């Protein structure tokens, strides 16, 4: 059996466990000796992991498949969160409506900023989107009906299981979306743009439309995650809805897991979030976690630029040869 198949089986079992564990009552799970998801902390971590799977997969669609490294995706998360906040508190409508509106708002914003910004490439695009991410947060921070600097408080819904399933469902949606995209004409168009945009244009790829569409899909997914986060956390402000560190994290996860792949962002999100939770014990621990993440990113980008998915499940064996080969192939 190949390494890839083993990985699939393990991933499938883990997924089944994560999905099924909360189905049984917490007491039953404890008696059965299943530690995961039986206490609040683990529920919180599992929901957070699912949230980052959505964000990393969303980023992967624009950054990994299309090759446009966005540092402003967190704006979509924030807009989704604030859409939920406004719908639930200011308009007194049910949360379900927020779940529908959040991706629409985020995607619309992606079209508005995407059309001018997606003309830029490389660092220029990265810096411009970073600017947008920060700016949207600052603007919302100064709008009185949106709670300004105080933030918005949403009525609390006490159901860890509900939010876990919502996030998990969105994460599965994000992974499926990527999987479908990679099997369609649209997906090939995105890859062509990433690999050589001018060549893509002269063989008939409508590059502007494709890029904006990819940005839109990424935004919609990220927006849903934002909306769920808002209701789950029941408090949002500029710091937790528009955190640039979240944006850095989703990029790290996609890069470490493997950009351009379906399961890379999932692997990256799970492993990195667990590492972060482990390292960030508070106090001086969080400093080491930051340093550790930085070192990890540097090592990954240099030695396994195609991500751990390719590293463990790819064509090659685990060997020095793999490192030498990828170094040769990816350094200009």
């Amino acid at each position, binding site marked *: 059996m190949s390494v890839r198949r083993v990985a699939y089986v393990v991933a499938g079992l883990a997924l089944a466990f994560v999905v099924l564990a909360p189905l049984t009552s917490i007491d039953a799970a404890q008696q059965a000796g299943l530690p995961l998801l039986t206490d609040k902390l683990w529920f919180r971590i599992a929901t957070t992991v699912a949230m980052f799977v959505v964000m990393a997969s969303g980023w992967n669609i624009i950054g990994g498949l299309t090759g446009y490294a966005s540092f402003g995706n967190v704006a979509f998360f924030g807009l989704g969160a604030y859409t939920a906040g406004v719908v639930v508190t200011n308009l007194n409508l049910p949360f379900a409506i927020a779940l529908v509106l959040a991706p629409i708002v985020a995607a619309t914003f992606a079209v508005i900023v995407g059309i001018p910004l997606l003309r830029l490439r490389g660092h220029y695009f990265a810096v411009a989107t970073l600017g947008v991410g920060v700016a949207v947060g600052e603007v919302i921070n100064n709008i009185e009906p949106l709670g300004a600097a105080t933030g918005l408080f949403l009525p609390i819904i006490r159901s860890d299981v509900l939010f876990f399933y919502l996030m998990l469902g969105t994460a599965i949606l994000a992974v499926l979306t990527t999987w479908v995209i990679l*099997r*369609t*004409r649209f997906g*090939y*168009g995105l*890859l*062509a743009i990433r*690999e*050589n945009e*001018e*060549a*893509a*244009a*002269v*063989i*008939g*790829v*409508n*590059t*502007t439309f494709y890029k904006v569409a990819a940005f839109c899909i990424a935004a919609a997914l990220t927006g849903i995650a934002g909306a769920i986060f808002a209701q789950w956390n029941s408090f949002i402000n500029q710091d937790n809805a528009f955190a640039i560190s979240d944006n850095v994290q989703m990029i790290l996860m996609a890069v470490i897991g493997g950009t*351009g792949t379906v399961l890379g962002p999932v692997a990256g999100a799970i492993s990195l979030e667990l590492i972060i939770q482990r390292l960030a014990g508070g106090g001086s621990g969080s400093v080491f976690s930051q340093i550790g993440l930085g070192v990890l990113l540097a090592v990954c980008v240099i030695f396994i630029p195609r991500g751990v998915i390719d590293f463990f499940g790819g064509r090659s064996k685990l060997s020095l040869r793999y490192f030498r080969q990828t170094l040769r*192939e990816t350094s200009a």
Partner: protein
Amino acid sequence: MSLLAVRDLSKRFGGVNALAGVTFEVEQGDVLGIIGPNGAGKTTLLNCISGLYRPDTGDIRWETTSIRGLAPYRIARLGIGRTFQIVRPFPSMTVRENTAMGALFGRPGARLQPGAALNEADTVLDVVGLGEKRQYPVLRLTVPDRKRLEVARALAMRPRLLLLDEVMAGLNQVEIEQALEMVRRVRDSGVTIVLIEHVMKVIVGVCRRALVLNFGRTLVEGPPAEVLKDRRVIEAYLGQRYARDQEP
């Protein structure tokens, strides 16, 4: 009515007149060679036709309609394929996938699905002589093979007009012969060709007409053999003194 008509085309880059009023026509089934010294504006001309540059003045007509200023993908779907002088493959894809991209996006009319496009690629790869290397990653291809791949990707679009930008540059004599054969096969399949080339053997070998550009202007136009003997052409390439010394 000609297939492609370029009229009084000009394009400036800052203070440089890359194109300064170029006019020519290409008939259906024609093979037109464009030659000229470095910096004469040959590639700029191709970039204007394929829509990568927007010309400053002048017009480009495809049959009866103007295609000036259209987006590159629209021009591609009208049936104009092109290659790049410096090859631009999609590096993470195989030879077959690269070629399939042309069939997937460049066809006018009915859209192919990825599977059908891959089958289409196999047919085209046989025409350009890459059939046995279809599963190779692009990075394993030699320079002449990469040039062939450029042609294959453009051919997969089933273009009516093919713009070839120096597909023979950097090839040795044997490879040039093979590439010439390939261009003849493409011509015989009914595709109209405009090719930029420095290798005179190619111009004489396949072109029905040759157009010489110099400083963004048309210098001479006519049958290749006559054009290459023209004193103005020799001057442009080798200097006035050399041309004078050659006078009988």
